[in-house]
């Protein structure tokens, strides 16, 4: 089950990335959250034919990934994961939207193709933005911010605990799966008719684990869903970063920089 192992690996490598120290890592988590959201919303607000106007936004991931030392290999792998759905919609655009948008030399380019490329490129930009966010922000800082945004505390704590136990259960599932395939020599992979007891076992074991976790929590005085979060002060560089990201992004949305170029040259 390479699948399960690689997922565990994914959490692990992000965990390592987010605990590095760089200027971007040191920024206030809220600032990073806001600028990421702003970036995604702006990207998505372009209509489907505006590929050219999206291009300058590539500076955002390029600069941030370099500053935070996030490797491109992780980035490309994730973009590939997000691709299938985008491809489905994009290809259908090629099929259905066949009017010619413009002609390069003698080669007609359809609107469908333009929107296809633009959908793929948007996918890349959005995935990159989210990846950068989690690669430069330790998980507990993210959840702290959720608390400060008054997300229900029970939900945030739940979120933290699920994140923690995903790693544990993935390890268990992958060990069970290995034990399974070692004795299922003639078949490839898990058979559907065994899925009930296979997953059922894992589920009951998880249930018993929950009981033990609950005991461990109670022993350390857990009896309320009280809110707890630490306030991190905003610094000058946080405000500078917010401005440095949002100004260009908003300006690029309002002005068509390509047009300015054409006007100048």
């Amino acid at each position, binding site marked *: 089950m390479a699948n399960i192992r690689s997922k565990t690996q994914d*959490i*692990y490598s992000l*965990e390592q990335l987010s*605990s590095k120290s760089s200027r971007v890592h040191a920024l206030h988590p809220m600032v990073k959250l806001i600028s990421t959201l702003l970036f995604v919303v702006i990207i998505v607000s372009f209509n489907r034919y505006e590929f050219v106007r999206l291009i300058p936004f590539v500076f955002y991931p390029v600069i941030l990934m370099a500053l935070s030392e996030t490797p491109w290999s992780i980035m490309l792998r994730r973009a590939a994961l997000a691709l299938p759905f985008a491809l489905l919609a994009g290809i259908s655009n090629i099929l259905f939207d066949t009017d010619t948008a413009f002609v390069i030399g003698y080669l007609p380019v359809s609107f469908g193709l333009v929107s296809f490329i633009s959908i793929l490129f948007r996918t890349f930009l959005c995935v990159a933005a989210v990846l950068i966010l989690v690669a430069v922000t*330790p*998980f*507990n800082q993210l*959840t702290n911010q959720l608390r400060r945004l008054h997300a229900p505390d029970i939900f945030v704590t739940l979120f*933290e*605990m699920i*994140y*923690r*136990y995903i*790693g*544990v259960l993935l390890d268990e599932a992958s060990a069970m799966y290995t034990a399974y395939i070692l004795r299922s020599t003639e078949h490839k992979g898990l058979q559907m008719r065994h899925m009930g007891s296979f997953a059922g076992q894992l589920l009951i074991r998880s249930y018993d*684990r929950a009981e*033990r*976790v609950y*005991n*461990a*929590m*109670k*022993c*350390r*005085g*857990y*009896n*309320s869903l*009280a809110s*707890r979060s*630490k306030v991190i002060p905003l610094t000058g560089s946080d405000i500078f970063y917010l401005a440095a990201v949002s100004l260009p992004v908003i300006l690029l949305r309002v002005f068509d920089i390509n047009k300015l170029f054409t006007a100048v040259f």
Partner: protein
Amino acid sequence: MIAVNNISVTYPDGTKAIRDVSFTINDGESVALIGANGAGKTTLLLSLVGVLKPYTGTISVDGITLERQTLNEVRRRVGMVFQNPDDQLFMPMINDDIAFGPRNLGLSEDIVEDRVNSALSELGIGHLRGRSSLRLSSGEKRIAAIATVLSMNPTMMIFDEPTAFLDPKSRRGLIKLLSKLPHGRLIATHDLAFADEVCPRTILMKNGTIFADGKTRELIYDARIMDECGIADTL
């Protein structure tokens, strides 16, 4: 000081897991709890911290009788380290886990921070602070789990099979660590050599009752006694 008087514990399904058990552990004393699988060790430990409610009998800690109203007071004084550290480390980062108990006590963030720092430094694991428990070694997880209890400033510590999962070196590290901590403690274990090294006194359990309570050396090397308890083995 923990004083246990004639407690019996019955599970909802009717299993009588503990029957009429009494003993006392003084401050600073180190006691091993030995018994076959299913003898009732875990059940006994869980009732000491009020997770399971005894059917009859009383438990008191530092003179405070364990009841509904004193539950928090008792849990603050008696810290329990669970058998599987993965059950005890449930927050994303180790420092959150260590801060979990003190925060629940309602301490201010400054004091919580202090507690976390001193637990980390006392156990010599400052480097684990911002790490997630996701990829710690078994030995590191075990020590982190102890830190989560230490930060509550307990007077008494309870361990359920602390040497499980450890390689010989980490096991040795744990023994060194325990010899440095001043707390009174009760340690359920199958590792007789470990009990011998760490605990001068042993409580032997059999089928939910106390079969013997005395000097560790005198009990675990006595083949007849060990055999009667169903844990016959040569060291």
